[in-house]
């Protein structure tokens, strides 16, 4: 493989250089019917799961077919997408903010052939390459992150947990039968690139072992004061250690010491310093959070809450995790009111009932103990419901 230059001259990096030109103008990419009716849309209809019709004031219509995208996609897959767009949509397409693919056509009769084409494309294991759905009161695609595919801090995989979950919930993607939209997000560590902090249901990778300290290397690879400063709970302090180096030589090195019982496994130290790895097969796994939302519809946006503190990593299909998710989705689907988001439902019935109805064991770990605001999550009221056994003091004694 011979190196082929783009024209860039490393000796004269400024030669011919173009910078700060920003993204391409979106107007270049708008399908004609969209361009023509820009800002002049009258209303929309969801004709069936995955198929939208937008009506313009001019009377024009644009039909959108939405397909599940798996986000991590190869150029092979993109070329298949563009091929479809060329065949049916005059070479236009878009992606949604949740990584779905939208094919738009400007008349109704173009929908069926498009759909047929999409659904006919399957992978070797029988998966749909372009499942249609993700509209209305459904579970659409999962916003997620890198996981073991690319990142250095994950506590679980992203693409795998997402695939396992979407396989489990596939029917909810292709239907619109939930009480409201149910948005699932996934993030592989507490940095939460998947912004799982406000999703109806969130899959979150978490660590449970404090960092190991690579005493021999830390002073070379990291700035110790930065590592110390990185810890939000001040569990790290500068220290010295006597070590036997790889060379066999005994020496005293500058390093850090960690108060393990203070550590909350946030991983921020590791982000700042590679000599403090946390990852561990048994320590790492998944927490489930529920009840967040973004939209201002009826109720204000809200944060997701931890309801299952830990599920072990069970690659490749994380069965305990998917089963638990299924329980929550089913309980919600069965019990919530129309238009009621999962978090609003849980608040209406009371979180004590949520655990009962979803059949999720309650553990002390879901009680907040982080900083002052924790207090506001405890119950300062006698208004609560009985759940099985709690009315008997003998049962709640340790």
């Amino acid at each position, binding site marked *: 493989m011979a190196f082929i230059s783009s024209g860039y001259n490393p000796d004269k990096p400024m030669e011919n250089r173009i*910078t700060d030109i920003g993204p391409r103008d979106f107007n270049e990419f708008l399908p004609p019917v969209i361009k023509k009716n820009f800002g002049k849309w009258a209303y929309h209809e969801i004709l069936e799961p995955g198929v939208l019709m*937008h009506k313009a004031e001019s009377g024009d219509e644009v039909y959108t077919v939405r397909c599940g995208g798996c986000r991590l996609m190869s150029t092979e897959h993109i070329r298949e997408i*563009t091929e479809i767009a060329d065949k049916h949509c005059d070479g236009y397409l878009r992606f949604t903010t949740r990584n779905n693919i939208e094919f738009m056509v400007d008349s109704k009769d173009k929908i069926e052939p498009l759909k047929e084409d999409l659904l006919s494309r399957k992978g070797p294991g029988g998966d749909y390459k372009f499942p249609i759905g993700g509209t209305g009161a459904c579970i659409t695609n999962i916003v997620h992150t890198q996981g073991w595919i690319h990142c*250095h801090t994950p506590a679980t995989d992203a693409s795998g947990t997402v*695939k396992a979950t979407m396989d489990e919930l596939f029917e909810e993607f292709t239907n*619109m039968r939930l009480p409201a939209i149910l948005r699932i997000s996934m993030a592989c560590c507490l940095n*939460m690139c998947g912004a799982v902090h406000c999703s109806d249901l969130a899959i979150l990778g978490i660590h449970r072992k404090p960092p190991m300290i690579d005493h021999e290397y830390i002073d070379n690879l990291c700035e110790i004061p930065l590592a110390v400063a990185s810890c939000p709970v001040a569990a790290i302090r500068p220290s010295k250690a006597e070590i036997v180096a790889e060379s066999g030589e005994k020496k005293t090195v500058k390093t850090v010491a960690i108060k393990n019982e203070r550590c909350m496994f946030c991983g921020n130290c590791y982000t700042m310093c590679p000599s403090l790895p946390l990852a561990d097969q048994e320590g790492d796994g998944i927490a489930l959070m529920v009840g967040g939302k973004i939209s201002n519809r*009826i109720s204000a946006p809200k944060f997701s809450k931890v309801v299952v503190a830990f599920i072990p990593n069970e690659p490749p299909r994380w069965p305990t995790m998917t089963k638990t998710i299924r329980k929550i989705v089913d309980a919600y689907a069965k019990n919530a009111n129309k238009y009621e988001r999962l978090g609003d439902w849980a608040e209406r019935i009371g979180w004590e009932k949520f655990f009962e109805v979803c059949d999720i064991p309650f553990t002390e770990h879901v009680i907040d103990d*982080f900083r002052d605001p924790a207090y506001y999550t405890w119950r300062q009221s006698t208004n609560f419901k009985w759940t099985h056994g709690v009315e008997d003091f003998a049962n709640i004694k340790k």
Partner: protein
Amino acid sequence: MAKRETPLLDQLESGPWPSFVSDIKRAAEARHKNERNVEYQIPVDVCDDLLGVLELSYQDGTTHWKHGGIVGVFGYGGGVIGRYCDQPENFPGVAHFHTMRVNQPSGKYYTSQYLNDLCDLWDFRGSGLTNMHGATGDIVFIGTTTEQLEEIFFELTHKFDQDLGGSGSNLRTPATCLGQSRCEFACYDTQALCTHLTHEYQDELHRPAFPYKFKFKFDGCPNGCVASIARSDLSFIGTWRDEIRIDQEAVAAYVGGEIQPNAGAFAGRDWGPFDIQKEVIDLCPSQCMSLEDGKLVIDNKECTRCMHCINVMPRALKIGNDRGCSMLCGAKSPILDGAQMGSLLVPFIKVEDNYDEIQEIIENIWDWWMEEGKNRERLGELIKRQGFQKLLEVTNIKAVPQHIQEPRSNPYILWREEEVEGGWDRDINEFRKHHAR
């Protein structure tokens, strides 16, 4: 034939949802076949090795990627995430495996032509694997070597008229909902504002001068389809200040069952016939709707523009005519001090062709944050640390009750000396004349 056995990953090829494993395998195969006769600039078995390293992670439950190190393109402080494998001997194809963030067009519309061209470039100089799109919004090119970074950048700028997105302590790639391009709810042109500010702040996007990352996101209405309120340091959410427009005939059609509620979004289940009282009026959070003589009446001064009624009856109810946006600030993930949503700073501002007022607010915020923000302190954390009042001060905005959900319940008010009659300087001896020890 696959270069390696991946028995665990193979189990992710079944099931109805698109399989990323099948896709990567297909890409691996395509690379080996090389039907397009590409002169691959990075190892041909990059995809095989990626599968291999991932299989290993599935076995041992840990990642095999190391910290990035500083790689990038000359003069830019962002756009590239460096990545190296922690088992380079076993997986040489991914020994270097950097990603590049390519600034997506506002609203994520594309032509096939443009995407195909990007694919050509990325097959040639990278792994051929992408994210469409990254969580911030970029087109993410996953996996290339250090030497290719400048080459790709050169080609992107020269042949594609296309720049990189953000990473590091700078402005991150702004993102928007599709807005007016295809949505009747859009209260301003989100794509135009997004594009304008992205261009206006290219320097901030490419050259880290901030204490930490900073994100803009643009939602055309309170439905929040790009999640700006949760994911951006500065969030622009469309709204209006006049009245919801009502088409009473269409209301009647909804009530009569001629039009499906919520554009058919609930059609998959039998929820019974549409009941405007129960489904709209009773659910209105401000209880400002009523039916009078069969006509729907909205007390607009009580309306909080939550979108519910409009979502349920998009053919009958329309957003007002006098539109603009609200600006909220400080959203972020939980590291370090707990997550934040954006807090309302500007209840309403017009979004006209001239964005000067908006830019003034942005720049005032940045000036403050750059002056006072600690290393790796997000705007939201600074606001918490120095107080909402300080944010108002630096943006020259008066306190209004819209800024709060409720007033303080503690009485710990930080009075300033100039507000207190007589000032703070007092003479203890004078005081003691009237108050013996």
